[in-house]
């Protein structure tokens, strides 16, 4: 069985298990904020992982996540809340419009004869500003009045609001991860990594760099918009200030850098850790200290763990897993945390600490996308 097949089976198992969570939580009569916690984590996972498809894979640093997210939020807002479209019909439109927005931006910046990372980064930042002004100016979008999403009808088969949010965010996050994984393992993925590492050489060796950069940007924008489309419901009252601010792009960057840009799973790890941290700090009543603590932690982690948490943990997955399971066990048995989320939070922090322990370098293993598949045998191209 190839490693790709194994991973795909893993995807299937995770999908089935996670899909049961709302039902289990309900039947155990556990607090419903468990479900909220999880679907918010799905939101950040999808945003970070999709951002990484552009920035981690091709190396073009983007501040544009807020723009794609915002296009998604306003699309479902306008279509479902203002024009009464069925929500599930408006949702794919949100993804497609954001994706087209990404492609339009790519048509402009990737065609410039003189390209640079700085120009790209600044342009993506500008896109969100422009969209915010447009939304504020035109009343068919927002016009400064905001859009009420509460009361938007959802199909009955999705369950109550929390369960529906869980299911929708879950599907989007799942599709984002699956796309990131399939790209990572494909020759298109390699082409993207070659662009990241040395674009002129990649181009000279036959990698269609324009097409691949467009694909990366379009995929990033599509998933950012699709998840944004779902998220309009959670926002409830959509305003320009809430949607087009620096929060989404900034958090996505922090999460991805912490988790690691060099692997498709890295940003998902970073997203869970940072989201859990902010959530627990908030619930402990430390909102004011929140940013100080997160900022400080990030500085330490980014300096100490440059390749990101994920690859570090994978290199020592046995001790990491042992620490996690042990911590959860101890906390639960001695009832140290006030809820399962606290238990999870402490266990995660301890596990992250494992990543900081230095490890002897293994010089001959390359952190390359295909090295796992190749370690055993000579590989022919996919």
């Amino acid at each position, binding site marked *: 069985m190839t490693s790709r097949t194994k991973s795909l089976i893993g995807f299937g198992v995770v999908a089935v298990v996670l899909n049961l969570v709302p039902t289990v939580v309900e039947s155990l009569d556990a607090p419903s904020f468990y479900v909220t916690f999880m679907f918010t984590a799905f939101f950040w996972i999808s945003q970070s992982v999709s951002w990484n498809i552009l920035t981690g894979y091709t190396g073009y640093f983007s501040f544009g996540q807020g723009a794609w997210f915002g296009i998604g939020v306003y699309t479902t807002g306008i279509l479902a809340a203002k024009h009464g479209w069925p929500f599930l019909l408006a949702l794919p439109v949100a993804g497609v419009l954001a994706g087209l927005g990404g492609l339009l931006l790519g048509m402009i910046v990737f065609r410039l004869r003189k390209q640079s990372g700085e120009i790209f980064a600044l342009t993506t930042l500008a896109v969100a500003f422009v969209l915010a002004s447009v939304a504020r100016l035109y009343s068919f979008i927002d016009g400064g009045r905001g859009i009420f999403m509460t009361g938007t009808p959802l199909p009955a088969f999705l369950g109550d609001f929390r369960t529906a949010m869980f299911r929708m965010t879950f599907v989007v996050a799942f599709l984002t991860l699956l796309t990131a994984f399939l790209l990572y393992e494909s*020759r298109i993925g390699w082409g993207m990594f*070659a662009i990241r*590492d*040395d674009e002129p050489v990649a*181009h000279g*060796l*036959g990698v269609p760099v324009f097409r691949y950069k467009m694909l990366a940007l379009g995929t990033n924008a599509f998933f950012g918009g699709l998840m944004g489309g779902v998220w309009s419901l959670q926002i409830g009252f959509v305003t320009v200030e809430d949607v087009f601010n620096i929060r989404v792009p900034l958090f996505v960057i922090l999460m991805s850098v912490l988790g690691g840009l060099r692997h498709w799973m890295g940003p998902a790890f970073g997203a869970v850790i940072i989201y859990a941290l902010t959530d627990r700090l908030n619930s402990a009543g430390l909102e004011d200290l929140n940013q100080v603590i997160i900022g400080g932690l990030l500085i330490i982690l980014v300096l100490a763990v440059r390749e990101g948490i994920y690859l570090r943990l994978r290199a020592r997955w046995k001790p990491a897993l042992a620490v996690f399971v042990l911590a959860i066990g101890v906390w639960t048995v001695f009832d140290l945390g006030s809820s399962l989320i606290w238990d999870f939070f402490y266990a995660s922090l301890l596990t992250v600490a494992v990543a900081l322990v230095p490890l002897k370098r293994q010089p001959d293993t390359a952190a*390359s996308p295909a090295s796992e598949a190749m370690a055993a045998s000579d590989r*022919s*191209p996919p």
Partner: protein
Amino acid sequence: MLEVRGVSAGYGTAQALWDIDIDVAEGEIVTLVGPNGAGKSTFVNVVAGLSRAWSGSVVLDGQALTDLPPAQVCGQGVAIVPEGRRLFPDLTVTDNLDIGAFHPAARAKRDETYERVSSIFPIVVERRNQRAGNLSGGEQQMVAIGRALMARPQLLLLDEPSLGLAPVIVEQIFDVIREINQTGTSVLIVEQNVVEALELASRAYVLENGRIVRQGDATELLNDESLQKAYFGM
């Protein structure tokens, strides 16, 4: 096979090449020599499509390459070994080679080409799972040439292959280039190492300040007194 006619090029407003004419015939090794800053790398970049020619034309087997994007130039049969090798340091040796076999025609014959490349450079098999960045300079140069060969080029463009390598390694690399040429690949090699390059090539062009100042049979140029004075201090 390769016909370069009247090419001028440069960066921004700074002109680096004036009216260059260069030919490479089928199966030939041609070298373009000249001092640092003469415009050699600019010329290679123009042929590979990485820089745009201001005027003039680059034609390969009747097919115009001028203004094609680099990936398409590669698809037409020109592969580049860039100055300083520029491997993908975090990828394994095999991954580096596979990026060379990116365009569809090369991909279709990947396994066959890989066999050939590994018979020329046994190192790519011995070190296949190593990070390219961990190889020595000479090994990296071999992988860089192997990577270009994976594109199954009719014309191999080498930009300063001797750069930063010990003389004995340069010797080896140049032997391999000769071997590659004997299996039917035309070679255009740009070098500062004038003696080695002239010994390898059949014909040569001398580039100074962006203009071709001499051209002809490589052996004749090697024995030319004025050139010896200028380049070898003899």
